């Protein structure tokens, strides 16, 4: 049993992060790279809490012991300690990876991308233009990521300010008190993030990131498609064409069967195997057929008293 609350906190983080990695079926190597910084952060968190509590309590004690000292310097010092602590938390969360920076790697297309301002000439003109568009998209992605990062930073700064304002040093520091600090920080951070994430500027930056990423992917796909054709490999475009044709044939087949009427389906069977083997395609109605088979709505004749219960806890 570990008695020291800081050691408890550190141990808790270290074990939790290892377990999280296991739960997410990542390799130990990935776990180390992904979660190692958090273990380190937990240690720094414990140190920051201790510094805050010791600083605030020490200042208050010296203020009380010194005749003629007003409470204001003590409060100011406590506030300063709180600010240091909140700034620490802000810095720790600044590097948390968000969706906008996960799974997107524009650098893949960047090295061979020519400048967008170069003229595209010659036999490979179309390829040059495509690469230029990829380069443009990459620049847009990069810019959007920077804007989102600034919003993230602003949200963390707001959270840190709110956290510092509401912080009070506890009478005695325990693991439970450390948890309370942590939860209070999470509350402040979520509140600040929720406000930021709803702003027009944030939504615009996020949309720009998605749209630029979509464009970059589209150009990359087109490039790969081009090379696949040269090598006479099957392309996504060809497969999509075949899928569309197949879907169209299936729809015509279902439409011809006219299975969409009530009771038209085959009787149910409780045998999964029999059901799987004997199952017809779902009774389908192609758009035109749906319109042909339209029925007038049949309002229920039974008038029922309107029931309203606004809330039930």
């Amino acid at each position, binding site marked *: 049993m570990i008695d020291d609350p800081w050691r408890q906190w550190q141990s*808790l983080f270290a*074990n939790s992060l290892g377990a999280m990695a296991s*739960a997410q079926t990542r390799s130990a190597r990935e776990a180390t790279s992904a979660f190692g910084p958090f273990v380190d952060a937990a240690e720094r968190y414990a140190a920051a809490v201790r510094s805050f509590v010791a600083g605030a309590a020490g200042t208050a004690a010296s203020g009380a012991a010194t005749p003629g000292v007003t409470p204001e310097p003590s409060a100011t010092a406590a506030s300063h300690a709180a600010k240091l602590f909140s700034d620490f938390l802000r810095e720790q969360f600044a590097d948390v990876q968000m969706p906008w920076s996960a799974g997107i790697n524009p650098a893949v297309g960047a090295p061979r991308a020519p400048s967008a301002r170069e003229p595209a000439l010659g036999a490979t003109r179309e390829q040059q233009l495509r690469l230029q568009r990829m380069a443009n998209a990459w620049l847009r992605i990069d810019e959007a990521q920077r804007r989102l990062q600034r919003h993230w930073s602003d949200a963390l700064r707001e959270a840190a300010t709110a956290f510092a304002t509401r912080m009070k040093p506890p009478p005695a520091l325990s693991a439970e008190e450390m948890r309370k600090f942590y939860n209070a920080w999470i509350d402040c951070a*979520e509140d600040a993030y929720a406000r930021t994430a709803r702003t027009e500027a944030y939504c615009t930056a996020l*949309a720009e990131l998605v749209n630029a990423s979509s464009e970059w992917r589209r150009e990359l796909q087109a490039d790969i498609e081009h090379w696949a054709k040269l090598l006479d490999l099957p392309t996504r475009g060809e497969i*999509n064409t075949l899928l569309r044709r197949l879907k169209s044939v299936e729809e015509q087949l279902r439409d011809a069967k006219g299975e969409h009427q009530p009771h038209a389906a085959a009787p149910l069977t409780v045998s999964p195997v029999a059901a799987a083997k004997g199952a017809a395609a779902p009774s389908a109605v192609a758009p035109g057929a749906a319109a042909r088979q339209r029925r007038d709505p049949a309002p229920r004749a039974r008038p029922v008293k309107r029931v309203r*219960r606004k809330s039930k806890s």
Partner: protein
Amino acid sequence: MIGDGLRAALAAANDCAPGCSPKDAIWQAGKLTLYRYRPIAPSKGGAPLLIVYALVNRPYMMDLQEDRSLIRGLLSEGVDVYLIDWGYPDGADRFTTLADYIDDYLGACVNRILAAHRLDALNILGVCQGGVFSLCFSALYPERVRNLITMVTPVDFHTPGDLLSKWVRKIEVASFVGEGNVSGDLLNQVFLSLMPFRLTQQKYVDLMSQSPDRARIENFMRVEHWIFDSPDQAGAAFREFLLWFYQENRLALGRLELAGRTVDLRALRLPILNLIGKLDHLVPPEASAALERLVGSADYTALQFELGHIGMYISARAQREVPKAIAGWLAAR
């Protein structure tokens, strides 16, 4: 040490399988499977209830484990329960549209159940996006639905509190989806980013801070499994859903067309029970509550629970209240 015990408990819970109630697969088409749950209590004699789950995430959340199962709760109340499992779409399903899902697949499931029971209409419980599908189907084929229950279902996609909707508005949907499917992992990232501090940090700290109780750990791991077991989304249907619902809000505005027909919610004159999570961060309560002003039903009931989106399926409180509310409401009709 706490850490060692917790680590061992988590590792032991790695393979906890979700799902507890026996069921039979009675029909399959493409990736879809229609299940019927085996009864565990005498039937109340009402029409069967078809649960229409969302395409996003897997339907076993409705039957996670014995003490966290909405389906088990319904079976205990004598309800005859069917469930649609949409499966995991792959590249061959990329051109599957909303009309395919709603008009064809859902319609075929309804037809088969009606034929088996020799009924004209059944009850439907639509969950989240599945609730949207259920509303559309019921509006298109009102004669086939006796009672409609919607659960954490968005109807008005442009309410002020809908963060997801705000994010989606300026996205070029056609370009984003392209001609492929949309990754379930990507969607997960988006959902996590709605509350990143709680969902990627605090949740795990909370887990580690408590005792390594086996039942609690197993429950946590099943939910964790469910959260990250996200099917890819068929591209065409996803594109339509984002564009028509999130961006253009067609359902609420009465401008939605499916398979060549207008989906008019005013045509819904059947009894409707709307179950709303007051703490839902994915589907804000007002997005669901909007249903009341849009439908033509004279028998509309809204129940609000002090629960979040996932809590509506699996919280202890939901187990006590939601199945009874549904069964009681059905029994009265």
